[in-house]
């Protein structure tokens, strides 16, 4: 990691309150309270074939408009270590800014702990990318997500469809970079390892998470990733560690993904 990227990451992480009780790599039917703004950051490293690397840091700002309505903006930063002509030698660039409006349509609190929530969301990816890390078009998307927590078990399921109106990335990296529309279908399971039962004390909780993150394009390309992770969640912060292992990839003109790593820190106010 270059000093520039590391410095940027450290600065942002150190200043970042965020949101918890979410899977590491997919949406959740959670939202900030009305009038509350929540920044969040995630840093990732992807290893591709032939020792090619990609570093990504995504900044998110989420704001509660009303009790069940929130808006969010995601801005990714990339640093590429690919073979030319893709971004190489640590070339730095912005990705596409994503704006999202999320509405919680179901909140069923069953008892002290258990709850079922569902949200729908819609938004667009804007062509803010630089140095080959972004598309050339405004791409609208819509989707839905369900989150259920029963005792020590949590389950998330989400579906999102993105209409790609332009040509995608000149040199695609992921399946979602192609000029074809694509769908993201994700499933996630979280198990609270500690504590077995909550008490009256303010303690952190350790979760083991397992996600299936998939992308399917109408052109026939796809990625299926298995994503195990660990989440430490306390009242005022959360730490997350994750892996992404490709189970199946079918992509054209894109490097083969070998492994993804995720390290995140969230500070919660």
């Amino acid at each position, binding site marked *: 990691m270059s000093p520039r990227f590391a410095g940027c990451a450290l600065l942002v992480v150190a200043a970042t309150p965020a*949101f*918890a*009780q979410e899977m590491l790599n997919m949406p959740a039917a*959670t*939202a900030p*309270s*009305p009038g*509350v703004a929540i920044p969040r950051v995630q840093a990732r490293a992807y290893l591709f074939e032939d020792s090619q690397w990609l570093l990504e840091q995504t900044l998110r700002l989420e704001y509660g408009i*009303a*009790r*069940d*309505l929130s808006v969010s903006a995601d801005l990714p930063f990339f640093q590429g270590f690919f073979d030319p002509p893709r971004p190489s030698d640590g070339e730095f660039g912005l990705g596409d800014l994503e704006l999202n*409006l999320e*509405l*919680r*349509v179901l*909140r069923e*609190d*069953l*008892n*002290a*702990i*258990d*709850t079922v929530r569902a949200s*729908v*969301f*819609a938004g667009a990816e804007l062509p803010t990318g630089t140095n080959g890390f972004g598309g050339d078009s405004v791409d609208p998307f*819509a*989707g*839905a997500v369900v989150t259920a*927590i029963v005792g020590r078990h*949590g389950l998330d399921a989400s*579906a*999102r*469809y993105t*209409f790609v109106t332009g040509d995608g990335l000149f040199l695609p990296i992921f399946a979602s970079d192609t000029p074809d*529309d*694509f*769908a993201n279908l994700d499933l996630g399971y979280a198990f609270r390892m500690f504590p077995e*039962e*909550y*008490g*009256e004390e*303010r*303690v*952190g*909780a350790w979760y083991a998470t397992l996600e299936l993150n998939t992308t*399917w*394009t*109408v*052109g*026939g390309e*796809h990625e299926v990733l298995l994503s195990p992770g660990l989440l430490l*969640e*306390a*009242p*005022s912060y*959360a730490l997350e560690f994750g892996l992404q292992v490709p189970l199946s990839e079918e992509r054209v003109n894109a490097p083969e993904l070998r492994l993804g790593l995720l390290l995140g820190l969230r500070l*919660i*106010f």
Partner: protein
Amino acid sequence: MQASTLRACGLATVALTLVALPTGCASTQTAPSDRNASLAAIGDGTLAPGRYDLVVRGMSCPKCISNVDLQLKRIDGVGEPKVDMKNGVVAITVRDGSAPSRAAVATAISDAGFTLTEIREVPR
């Protein structure tokens, strides 16, 4: 996955979202039925100075404590909340000279993302 299937799923998702968003926006700006039911169960009037246990559903993670803290502290006269996640109870103190409304407490819990089902006065 067939392209036509994918497109159909995408269009269905978008259609549902476009229907749900404006409907939901309108309902959140007025008052959703669950909120009315919650307020009815909590009653109206104000809380006299003293200690109260709020019975709350849906606090499923440590972060919930922060959300509840944040919203309750916005109510004038409500002291430092103490959350018992196991039993779903939030203990609060109403300071002398203050009289927060029951509705404000219910709204704060709902804004935090949870459901208030009862306010119990703790005997001195």
